[in-house]
Structure formats: structure tokens, C-alpha cells
């Protein structure tokens, strides 16, 4: 088996996630391939130096500052804001629909033959809508 074929197995071997059969295959290959021995040693070295970096600590007072923001946010009743915007959206759609309907009925009245059934219905509906909006 070539080095390229074993690259994933070798990486898993370094990470300690190979099963016994894969470990044996990795070890057999390493015993006879100097390039891969260097590579695996290099990876282990990388793992050691990265894991060995000085641990990082959050700055003094960091958690308090985070919680101050969180508590401020938690205190705001978010549902009210969402409800308000939803309601105003619903109201504006109602107005738009009413205006659209009135324009359509106006067109029927204007273009339709005088005294026709369609014109009479449109006139009746328009008077009804106007009385609703006028309230």
C-alpha cells in the first residue's frame, strides 16, 4: 500500500482513533517508510506545541460584562415589540386591501354600462365600504 493510501490512517493513528487492525497497518508501514516516520513525528510535534501553548484566560470582569448585557436584554419584553410590528403590518394590509377594492369598484362603475346589474352591485358595495371607513 502506498503512502498516499495510508495518509488518513496515519493521521487517525496520531490522533489515537484507529482500531487495532488500522494501528497494525500504520505501524507496519512506519517500520519500513522513513518519509512517513518523519511526517508522523512532525504531526506529533505540532500537536505537542499547539496543545502546549499558554492557556488563554478571558479578561478580568469579562463574564460580568457579558451578564450585564444579557440581563439588560432579558429584561426587555421582546414579545411586545414583535406583536406591535405584526399588528401594524396587519392594519396597513387591511387599508391597502380596502383601497384596492374601492378602486376596482370605481372602475366598474365608470366603465360599465349605466344601470347594468354589475354597476348597481358596485355602487352598493362602494357605499357600504365608504360607510365602514368613515366610522
Amino acid at each position, binding site marked *: 500500500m502506498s503512502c498516499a493510501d495510508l495518509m488518513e490512517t496515519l493521521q487517525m493513528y496520531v490522533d489515537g482513533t484507529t482500531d487495532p487492525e488500522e494501528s497494525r497497518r500504520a505501524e507496519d508501514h512506519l517500520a519500513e517508510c522513513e518519509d512517513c516516520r518523519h511526517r508522523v513525528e512532525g504531526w506529533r510535534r505540532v500537536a505537542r506545541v*499547539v496543545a*502546549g501553548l499558554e492557556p488563554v484566560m478571558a479578561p478580568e470582569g469579562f463574564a460580568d460584562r*457579558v451578564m450585564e448585557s*444579557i440581563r439588560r436584554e432579558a429584561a426587555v419584553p421582546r414579545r411586545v415589540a414583535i406583536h406591535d410590528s405584526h399588528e401594524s403590518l396587519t392594519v396597513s394590509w387591511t387599508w391597502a386591501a380596502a383601497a384596492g377594492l374601492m378602486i376596482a369598484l370605481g372602475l366598474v362603475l365608470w366603465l360599465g354600462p349605466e344601470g347594468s346589474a354589475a354597476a348597481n352591485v358596485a355602487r352598493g358595495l362602494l357605499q357600504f365600504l365608504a360607510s365602514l371607513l368613515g366610522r
Partner: protein
Amino acid sequence: MSVARSWAGLPDEKLAELSAAGDTDAFAELVRRYQDRLYGLALRLTGDRQEAEDVAQEAFINIFRALGRYRRGERFAPWAYKITSNLCIDHLRRRRGQVVSLDAPSGADGEEDEQRPIPDWSSSPEKVVLEQEGEQQVLQAIDELPPNYRLVVLLRHVDDMTYDDIAAVTGLPLGTVKNRLFRAREMLRRKLSHLRQGTAEARSVST
């Protein structure tokens, strides 16, 4: 502190559920448990302490806001890391309005190298200068990796995550995670081949 005592022994997942139900004290315990890890990830990805603090703070606020979508039984750590690392990558994308490739080596041309700030990841200024010398080389080498490669290396070696967890954090298929880790390790192996004994490596071996 009484808060720390009362939550001790409760798993992160239980604290997340309590937090989702509006218990801000439970969330304060999660912040306490994760502040060093998530700030550390932000610092190592951005290379700047002030930016890391801003990003980590924003990450915790985003985590809190996203708790409504947290699924019962889901592991908290990869979920929180995912939110944090996404935010870091977004910050790197937006940084100074530059178009920064997240997959290409950032130190490819010398010009860009000169503009980049020297990463300051140190949290203990009293450290011995000799120790810093080796550590700075390691930090510099990691900092020169493309951010998406830096992320998998940090998750694997600093946070000791499994391939599956890294896949969960990055949203990448397992095969892509292994491939990125392989390429990142190869880049680091070449960059650090000259590193002397008596530096960060020696310290890590001795601990």
C-alpha cells in the same frame, strides 16, 4: 461564590435548558464555564485582544438569543463553539473591508505580511522572554494558516475535539475535516521544523 456552588455537577446541557426557560443565573454559570475557551478561540482566530473580547461577548449574546432553537439533549459545547467560530469568521471577512480568503494561505505575499499586526495572544506578561520566543514562533505559524485551517487545528489540539465534534462545529463533512486537518498539519510541520528544544514544546512535554 454561591452561584458556582449551586450549579456544580449540573451538565452544560441542563444549564442550557434552564437558560432557555429564562433562568439567567443558569446562563451566568455557562458563561463562567465557557468564557476562557470561547474568548481563547476568538483571540486565536482574530489575533487581537480587543476584537476577541468584542467577538466573544457578541458570541455569548448570540448564544443566549439562540437558546430558543437549542434542542433538548443536543451537546452544548459544539453548538456554542459553532456560534462563536461563525462569528469570528464573519469578523475576519469584514475586517477593514478587505476581501480575505479564508482558505488560501494569508502570508502568501510579503506585502500582506507587513500589514498584518503581530498576534498578541499572551495572557501573562510576566512570562520569561525565552519561553515567549518559542511560543511566538508557534503562534506566528498558526496565525499564518488560512482561518478555516487555523480553526480545525485549534479545535483539535487546543480544545481536544474529536473529528465528529469538529464537523459539528464547522458544518463540514467528516472527510473535509480530515483533509483540512491533514493540510493544516502539513503546513505547520514545515513551518515549525526548525523550532528549538527549550521552547513551547519543551514546556508542553514537561507538563
